[in-house]
């Protein structure tokens, strides 16, 4: 018995196509091809990102099928991330998915991008009920499963952590590019520093707020000369320390509240090894096991959409192509998932 699903991701800067399969009840990722839009200056421009996706889509699709060693006819269903994300970007994936589903007469499966980030992590480590910390450019959430849904236990009240970090390095003139040789420029900059400066720290129960931290840090940065590497380094170090501590503290609060046995870190920011180290220490204090999704599947990718699409396929959650409309603000906790416990 083999079930094969093709998944399309295009919610933000990444266009990705993955192929997931269930072979004799064993999950397998057969392909995971991505192409990422990297802005020349500033942040993500939705229109330019979508143009990048349009150009790249056919190549990525071809390569994904080649890598999986299948033809489009062998696929049992087409899964697509319909949200949340940037409208123009989402529409590229949705258009391709509608076309593939109608032309090749395959069921079309709508996938929530945030659910997919979680499900791929659960599959990789075979977890049934972790406390999920979802950190990316657009999201910062503490999530648990309850009554067939993922419930948000805590989240940012303003900026997402990935966005916070990128905005900071951009505003002080260090980016783009945001990643140099696999390392975020914030981490590079933090290595220049050694002293700790106290910065605004806002934790409200399980929620956090980063806007005060950003404003205050940028205000201090204004008065530092660009050549003063030590001073900039101290600021980067303190900024990172403060933001990560806030995140670890709200996660710790949620862990103490829910008594979960495991913590799963997902999303693009999960690749940070400094955050990883803090989470390792925190979870060991509470005797919880800790898992972090490897970078290939932590950042936006098509494999996670394909895998979640496969789970939905098994429960026959299809839509007609004509109804496959993108939802920019499709919240994680709106989605009822049949495989989650009551």
């Amino acid at each position: 018995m083999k079930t094969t699903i093709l998944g399309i991701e295009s919610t933000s800067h990444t266009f990705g196509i993955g192929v997931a399969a269930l072979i004799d009840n064993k999950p397998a990722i057969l392909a995971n091809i991505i192409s990422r839009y990297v802005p020349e200056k500033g942040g993500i421009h939705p229109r330019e990102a979508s143009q990048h996706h349009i150009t790249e889509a056919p190549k990525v699709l071809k390569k994904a099928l080649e890598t999986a060693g299948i033809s489009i006819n062998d696929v049992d269903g087409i899964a697509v991330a319909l949200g949340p994300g940037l409208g123009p970007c989402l529409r590229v994936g949705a258009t391709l998915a509608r076309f593939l589903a109608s032309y090749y007469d395959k069921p079309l499966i709508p996938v929530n991008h945030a659910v997919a980030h979680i499900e791929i992590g659960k599959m990789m480590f075979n977890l049934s009920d972790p406390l999920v910390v979802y950190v990316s450019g657009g999201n910062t959430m503490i999530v648990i499963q309850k009554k067939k849904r993922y419930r948000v236990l805590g989240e940012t009240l303003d900026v997402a952590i990935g966005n916070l970090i990128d905005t900071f390095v951009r505003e002080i003139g260090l980016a783009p590019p945001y990643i140099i040789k696999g390392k975020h420029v914030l981490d590079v900059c933090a290595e220049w520093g050694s002293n700790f400066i106290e910065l605004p720290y806002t934790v409200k129960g399980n929620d956090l707020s980063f806007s005060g931290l950003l404003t205050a840090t940028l205000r201090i940065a204004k008065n530092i000369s660009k050549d003063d590497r030590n001073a900039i380094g101290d600021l980067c170090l303190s900024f990172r320390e403060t933001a990560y501590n806030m995140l670890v503290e709200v996660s710790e609060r949620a862990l103490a509240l829910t008594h979960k046995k495991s913590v799963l870190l997902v999303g693009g920011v999960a690749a940070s090894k400094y955050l990883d180290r803090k989470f390792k220490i925190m979870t060991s204090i509470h005797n919880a096991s800790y898992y972090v999704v490897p970078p290939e599947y932590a950042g936006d990718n098509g494999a996670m959409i394909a895998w979640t699409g496969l789970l939905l396929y098994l429960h026959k959650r299809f839509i007609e192509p004509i109804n496959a409309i993108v939802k920019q603000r499709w919240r994680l906790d709106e989605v009822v998932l049949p495989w989650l416990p009551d």
Partner: protein
Amino acid sequence: MASRLIKIAHGAEAILFKTMFLGYDAVVKIREEKPYRHPVYDRSFRLRRTITEAKVVSQLKMLGLNVPALFFIDLSNYMLVMEYINGSKLSDIIQSLSEDYVEELASKLGIQAAIMHKNKIYHGDFTLANIIISKGEPYIIDFGLSGYSTDIEEYAIDIHLLMRSIEALAPEKAEVFMTSFWRGYCNILGKEFCRSIKERVSEIRLRGRYIEESLRRKIRHERYM
């Protein structure tokens, strides 16, 4: 003076021990070092939060609220000794409670929260895990993130946190709980103040990520009506 210490809980930021203190059942709360934090930061945090908790809890006790009495404070060890409240955390028992009892507790809690806010104190971590039910009465505990403010934002955040906590832990009881909570709360603070808090709470909820735009627009529209 103090007798044997029995560890009763390992919370997010402190270890709790049960003991006897001058003949009373007591809790010893020690804010531990967090190895994932920068040490400078860690010490200033623990100190500040221990002081705040001591201050707020003793003021609320004097106002007659259901909070533990403060017995002793030792800042060099980031330690507080407080009255032991014998009961269960609302987060642990909420699912087994009858609807009538939930209504009664929520309304009593609303009164407690209203008196706290009326005295310009916010809790900062107002979740079901920080409410103990003892002999049919709700006790509010853990004031480490609390503070003094005249900004209604802080009061609204308390209620937002409570709402989110019940929605996550017992979604089927959330509506009954919040309706009764508001009843108790508004009885103390009056209709007008209550309305402005309610408005702020819904505004805060809309700041969360990815709220449906139509809902956001609807609320924005209502604000100008």
